[in-house]
């Protein structure tokens, strides 16, 4: 499965709903989308990973790169993920402590 990216704006945040596999082949598409949004002045991003089937370290790197981009503009990046197999990857790499990871869009948007 390829990568799908759907973007919408809600409550002052830009939500990117990601579907499919984020790997060495598809991660550049996510990187380009984040770069495009930040370039447009969207500094508060919510990455919804509920429909992500696969994530490797290339994908993690793109997320870290995105976090740095928004923080450079005093922005934020929140992740939505409650799949254990993906959460395990964040824990193993120590990134569970770096990202704000929420269980739902409602939770992610509720945090102030």
């Amino acid at each position: 499965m390829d990568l799908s990216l759907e973007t919408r704006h809600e409550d002052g945040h830009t939500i990117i709903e990601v579907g499919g596999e984020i790997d060495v082949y598809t991660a550049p598409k996510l990187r380009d989308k984040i770069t495009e949004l930040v370039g447009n002045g969207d500094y508060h991003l919510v990455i919804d990973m509920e429909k992500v089937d696969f994530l490797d370290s290339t994908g993690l790197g793109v997320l870290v790169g995105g976090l740095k981009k928004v923080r450079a503009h005093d922005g934020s990046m929140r992740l939505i993920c409650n799949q254990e197999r993906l959460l395990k990857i964040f824990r193993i790499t120590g990134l569970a402590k770096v990202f704000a990871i929420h269980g739902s869009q409602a939770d992610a948007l509720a945090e102030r």
Partner: protein
Amino acid sequence: MLSGPARTTTAVTVSIARDPALVRTVRLVAAAVARRTTGDEDFVEEIRLAVGEACALLVGPDGDRGASTGPVLVNMRIEDRLRVAVRAAGSVAGQDPPSSDIDGVEPWALLRGLIDDFGIVTDADGTTLSMSWPLR
């Protein structure tokens, strides 16, 4: 799926060009080989992730392959353990200085965290990532 321990050695070797688009194919093969040993889908997922990760590190991101050429070879064997070796000639992306995209993510951290038995051997001919898991 085999019932109980593997009764014969199963060996599968896949050779791919250093094209990131092909790493997914290797993951699919790795999952199929893992399913020959167990019905535990968590285990299958672990193998799929680890083999895909190792392969991705040796393939490198698109346009960042430097002087590295030649295929990436993935050998999977069901013996006393499930053993996987991923080999490529030349330098590998994972040993290059971190680009902005992977800054903050140590390239080997995921593999080292996932696998108890994981090794990297670099010689004049290239780099081999070796990993193994007990059969379930």
